[in-house]
């Protein structure tokens, strides 16, 4: 995809692709677990701003008719002048600071020249030398523990228009252009090539998304909110770039595909050329777009219509507006609530879930709340691909059912069923408990069932008396079945032992 082309000069990839073949490591010297080199460029649409980057057009164009959110500036009409949205710069600075970047004393815009219908001016207003911020870091959790991924730079640019190809890019004979997206405020975040596997790349993206959600600068659920270019090479081999991938899962899959492709070529002793590729989500493969020789020459020069910016003086003010971020919140949850690290990590990866947990923990033992939210609720939400706000399981309902659980009125198994039904039907927990008979069977009733099972299964009782533990399991199962899962297995075991 042409429109998100980026210059190579910022990336400190080792210049290794031009090495002659005989200097490449032999295939058997490649360690697939450590010799994969990945770097990412992430485009984040600051869609929580009200207006576009350089004009007053509304950013709420999603679900609108084409070409209804445009003006002379974002259409690139002659004589129009860009006026920079202050808040876009503030949002950019907040993100940069959250990624531990250093702000530059002076930052400015450049024109990146290319002819393509997605940018009617003939250039994109972007940044080049003197980006907004440089040299940051993000800590991710890998299977081998914590790992720091360095951030090369964060810069601001305008989003190009959206191109449509009816019947798919390969079949359509022409391009349809919708300029609603043109001029949307975009942040580009570039990592150093510190990622060593497609899985790490995905972990990094999940972490970045979590931080961006905490900062409340974008709605990641909107189409095109986060678009990723992924660079990959094997140690000693050429680098390829897969452009414009729209999901974290897509990035992982595209990189897995590329890793395998590179390895296969290496095995056949074929040199990997530097090239740009497209990820075909449906087919799960990458397709060649163009080789390095066809890459464009953007002829960057400073944008004369936008004055220089000295915004470093905003740093203190904006730093104070940054909320507690995932890592700090995780540490606090462990300390303040005494919950397991693993639970704290899970809860704090999503700001909405973290807030949900804190509300519930005011009334419920935090360890119990953490376990149910992290281990069960999150899984059920993921399964349905919804977030906690979209689900019917309000904090108030969760508190009500957890209170019953803590009092021993609902079994573990029925709690899971209850949570599922609340999420799916939105009905009141009390109503579901009554209707489905989720309330735990009273002690008297359990005793009756135990006695009944002992009476009806003399053989199993005999076996148990002869020290056959399987027989006990069998009897417990019988009682559980009779009570429709509404009794506590431990209690049943105790009663059986007592009465046999």
């Amino acid at each position, binding site marked *: 995809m*042409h429109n998100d082309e980026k210059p190579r000069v910022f990336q400190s990839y080792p210049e290794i692709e031009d090495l002659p073949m005989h200097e490449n490591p032999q295939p058997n010297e490649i360690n697939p677990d450590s010799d994969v080199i990945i770097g990412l460029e992430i485009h984040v649409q600051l869609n929580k*701003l*009200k*207006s576009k980057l350089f*004009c*007053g*057009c*509304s950013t709420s164009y999603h679900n609108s*008719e*084409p*070409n*209804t*959110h*445009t*003006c*002379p500036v974002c*259409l690139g009409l002659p004589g129009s002048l860009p*006026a*920079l*949205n*202050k*808040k*876009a*710069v503030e949002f950019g600075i907040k993100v940069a600071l959250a990624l531990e970047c250093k702000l530059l004393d002076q930052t*400015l815009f450049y024109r990146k*020249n*290319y*002819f*393509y*219908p997605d940018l009617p001016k003939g250039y994109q207003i972007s940044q080049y030398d003197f980006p907004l911020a440089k040299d940051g870091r993000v800590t991710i959790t890998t299977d081998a523990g914590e790992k720091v991924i360095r951030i090369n730079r964060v810069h601001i640019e305008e989003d190009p228009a959206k191109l*449509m*190809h009816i019947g798919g*890019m390969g079949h*359509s*004979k*022409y*391009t*349809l*252009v*919708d*300029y609603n997206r043109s001029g949307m405020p975009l942040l580009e975040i570039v990592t150093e090539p510190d990622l060593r596997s497609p899985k790490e790349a995905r972990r990094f993206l999940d972490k970045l998304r979590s931080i961006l959600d905490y900062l409340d600068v974008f709605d990641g659920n909107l189409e095109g909110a986060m678009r990723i270019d992924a660079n990959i090479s094997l140690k000693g081999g050429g680098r390829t770039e897969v452009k414009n991938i729209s999901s974290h899962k897509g990035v992982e899959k595209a990189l897995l595909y590329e890793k395998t492709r590179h390895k296969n070529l290496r095995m056949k002793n074929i040199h990997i050329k530097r090239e740009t590729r497209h990820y075909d989500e449906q087919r799960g493969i990458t397709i060649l*777009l163009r080789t390095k020789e066809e890459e*464009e*020459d953007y*002829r960057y020069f*400073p944008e*004369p219509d*936008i*004055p*220089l*910016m*000295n*915004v470093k003086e905003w740093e203190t003010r904006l730093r104070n507006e940054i909320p507690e971020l995932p890592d700090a919140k995780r540490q606090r949850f462990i300390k303040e609530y005494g919950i397991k690290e693993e639970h704290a990590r899970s809860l704090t990866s999503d700001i909405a879930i973290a807030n949900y947990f804190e509300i519930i923990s005011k009334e419920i033992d935090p360890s119990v709340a953490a376990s149910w939210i992290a281990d069960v609720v999150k899984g059920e939400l993921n399964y349905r691909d919804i977030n906690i706000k979209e689900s019917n399981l309000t904090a108030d309902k969760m508190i009500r059912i957890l209170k019953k659980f803590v009092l021993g009125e609902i079994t573990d198994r029925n709690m899971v069923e209850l949570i599922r039904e609340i999420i799916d039907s939105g009905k009141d927990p009390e109503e579901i408990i009554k209707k489905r008979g989720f309330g735990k069977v009273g002690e008297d009733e359990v005793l009756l069932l135990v006695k009944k099972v002992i009476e009806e299964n003399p053989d199993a009782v005999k076996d148990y008396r002869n020290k056959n533990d399987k027989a006990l399991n069998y009897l417990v199962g019988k009682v559980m079945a009779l009570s429709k899962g509404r009794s506590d297995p431990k209690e049943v075991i105790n009663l059986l032992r007592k009465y046999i």
Partner: protein
Amino acid sequence: MIDKKTLEHIGKLAKIELDDKDIDEFLPQLQSILDLFDEINSVETETVEPTFHVFGLKNVFREDDVKPSLDREDVLKNVPKKEKDYVKSPKIL
């Protein structure tokens, strides 16, 4: 020195087709422009700060306020080719 290959590359970037006659015409013209820049480049600027903007303006912003967009009818009025309220253009990959 600018050569034929460079000129063809510039033409390609600008999406302008150049035949041999054009090249013979433009090559000396561009060369004279480059010669002028060589002259400018010969000035010693080691101690001079780069000038990005001549007025010395800094930090010019607008607030994040929405203004009405154009009517789509007006937007598409001068568009040579359109389809279903989209602007239609040749496919370039």
